[in-house]
């Protein structure tokens, strides 16, 4: 099955991003396809390379970048990002900035669209 993933909550402050990541890892492990990951609302904060958590904790942005390196399309909403200071200059590797139209495309291309956080 082809899953689209929407993340609406910021990293560390809520579990949504962790749950999304764990879901994706489990789905890919079972041979499912991820049509894309879209960060919207406070979810855009998942994409900043300035994130620098304590070394004994998970590094959420590093995890997303590594997922992007595996070929999963990870997209940040430009409008929600600009409001929250997420722009090209602080964007983590293997994540791209685009518009909400990408989220619609992702939704239409997926068999199931799953939202984490709200």
């Amino acid at each position: 099955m082809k899953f689209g993933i929407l993340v609406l909550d910021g990293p560390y402050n809520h579990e949504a991003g962790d749950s999304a990541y764990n879901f994706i890892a489990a789905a890919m492990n079972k041979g499912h396809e991820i049509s894309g990951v879209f960060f919207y609302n406070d979810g855009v904060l998942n994409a900043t390379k300035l994130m620098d958590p304590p070394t004994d904790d998970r590094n959420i942005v590093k995890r997303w970048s590594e997922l992007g390196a595996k070929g999963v399309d990870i997209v940040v909403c430009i409008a929600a990002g600009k409001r929250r200071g997420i722009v090209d200059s602080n964007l983590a590797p293997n994540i791209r900035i685009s518009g909400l139209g990408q989220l619609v495309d992702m939704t239409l291309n997926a068999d199931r669209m799953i939202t984490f956080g709200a």
Partner: protein
Amino acid sequence: MAETPKKIMFVMQKPPHGSIYPYEGLEFILISGAYEQDISLVFLGDGVYNIKKDQDTSELGIKGFVKTYRTLEGYDIEKLYVDKKSMEDRGMTVDDLIVPVEVKTSKEINAMMNEQHAVFPC
């Protein structure tokens, strides 16, 4: 040949002011309207306040967006539903709302949700 439009439902559950989320939800809804899909919008819980008449945000110092709901029709987003109990619990009737809506029971909304390709909270 054009593909069959997919059913996409947005569920507005948060009050219009006090957070950015209903506004960002509305931005997503408007973009979706450009894709010629079968879009519907449900107002549930405090989300019903989004379409209450006579809102005035001038003293809040924020840009109000209630009027944007009136433009949805122009984006071919005409399926607007209000949860009956949510509206009544807040002492409102359809006369208090700025856009024409269909009033549905929770059971009817649940049945519609089950028919969707995707459901988004906002």
